[in-house]
């Protein structure tokens, strides 16, 4: 297992560690609900030690990367970030990726549901270097996440459009700052040298104190992605690897002639998608759903659960189910065959709440 540059420091700060694909990552800090609440209402900071990071030059790497990733990397403009996916030859999801075009440098940040070696194998033809062990990645999310960053690196960050990247300096530490995130709130991904990980984390936490910042871990992130309707490569992605039923068409450019998994995905697309992922919520007060539980509609099996958890926005348990296409619609009443007996559930529209960040106008703060 590789070492996270921030791991020992975070354990001292109360982090309970877990492992994700061979990488140490913070599971939680003791109160997952409080961590989710901090991100939904104020700000949260996560050490994303599980994220794989590759670097190359734009001149050398942009076209080779375009032939591997599903999105249109070749059209990526300077200062912008592409949110796309990496599939294997069978057209199954391997990683959810941000690709940032940062002046003459290109950054690839992958959350993978496959071992690091598999991502490296798929990128073998690209002139990029795996710098995962040389950097720390932090995710700063929440309706007030702009606050500590503005105070530390300046007001310019307020003007960053969604999916953009800039270089900043924090007391001599060079940062790659991405305006991005997967919680449905404002978000920034911060890439710093591994040697300065504890310093950057400490400075952000100190600056964020007046905004109500809290550290958070992967358990909270999984819940934030679930009710924020952000694809979670480590939950539903691991269960249903085909990007089409998962609704990830927006991450792919079907006009491109070459990318890993293209032929397999296009063949399945032409044949028609037989199942789709749909959100569902349990009736109030009910709980006990697990991944793999069967959903029934009017008594007949309709699909199964691929992700589930507590939604603070809804105030009840919810999940994602892979359903037969004919019944993959919001507004239907299902029963879930759970270990504790049948549970009433309704398919719902996602995201099922209005994120607080939608009400924030950064040009007015």
């Amino acid at each position, binding site marked *: 297992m590789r070492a996270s540059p921030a791991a020992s420091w975070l354990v001292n700060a109360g982090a309970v560690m877990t492992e994700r694909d061979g990488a140490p990552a913070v599971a939680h800090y003791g109160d997952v609900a409080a961590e989710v609440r901090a991100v939904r209402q104020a700000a949260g900071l996560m050490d994303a030690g599980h994220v794989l990071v590759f670097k190359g030059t734009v001149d050398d790497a942009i076209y080779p990367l375009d032939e591997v990733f599903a999105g249109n990397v070749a059209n990526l403009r300077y200062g912008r970030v592409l*949110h796309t996916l990496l599939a294997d030859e069978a057209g199954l999801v391997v990683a959810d990726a941000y690709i940032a075009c940062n002046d003459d440098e290109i950054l690839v940040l992958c959350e993978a549901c496959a071992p690091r070696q598999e991502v490296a194998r798929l990128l073998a033809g690209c002139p990029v270097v795996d710098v995962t062990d040389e950097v720390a990645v932090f995710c700063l999310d929440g309706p007030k996440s702009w606050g500590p960053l503005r105070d530390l690196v300046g007001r310019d960050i307020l003007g960053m459009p*969604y*999916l953009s990247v800039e270089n900043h300096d924090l007391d001599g530490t060079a940062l790659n700052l991405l305006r991005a995130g*997967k919680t449905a709130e404002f978000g920034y991904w911060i890439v710093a040298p591994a040697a300065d990980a504890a310093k950057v984390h400490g400075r952000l936490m100190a600056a964020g104190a007046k905004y109500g910042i809290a550290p958070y871990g992967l358990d909270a992130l999984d819940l934030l992605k679930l009710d924020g*309707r*952000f694809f979670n490569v480590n939950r539903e992605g691991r269960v249903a690897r085909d990007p089409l039923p998962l*609704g990830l*068409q*927006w991450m792919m*450019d*079907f*006009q491109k002639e070459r990318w890993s998994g293209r032929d397999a995905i296009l063949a399945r*697309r032409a044949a*028609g*998608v037989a199942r*789709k*992922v*749909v*959100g569902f919520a349990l009736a109030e007060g009910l709980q006990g759903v697990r991944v793999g539980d069967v959903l029934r*509609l*009017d008594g*007949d099996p309709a699909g199964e659960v691929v992700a589930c958890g507590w939604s603070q926005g809804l105030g009840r348990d919810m999940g994602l189910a892979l359903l037969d296409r*004919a*019944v993959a*619609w*919001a*507004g*239907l*009443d299902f029963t879930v065959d759970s270990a504790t007996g049948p549970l009433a559930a309704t398919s719902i*529209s*996602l*995201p099922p709440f*209005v994120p607080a960040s*939608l009400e924030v106008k950064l040009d007015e703060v």
Partner: protein
Amino acid sequence: MDPRTTSIIAERAGVVARIKRNLITRLSLPYTEDDLHEDVSLLGSGLGLDSLDALEVVLGVEQEFGVKIEEGNIALLRSINTLVDYVLEKNAAATAAGGGAR
């Protein structure tokens, strides 16, 4: 399938198809209707519409369904499904009030 379930699906599917066609035509999206998942985010991650695109979507829905969307109500644009919910609610309210839904 229960007739009530069939009816709910038919009503929703009709609105979804009209909104998807509207999005694809008005915004020249390089996708088919099948490519657009109903929960895909319209703003930010997902289709990544900008403010002009969002205005175009609002105008399209207002014209297609004869409903009014309040200025600044960008929360409705969280996904295709949240737009569909709004149209279905407005149609139900119009029907209850004795008016016809388009």
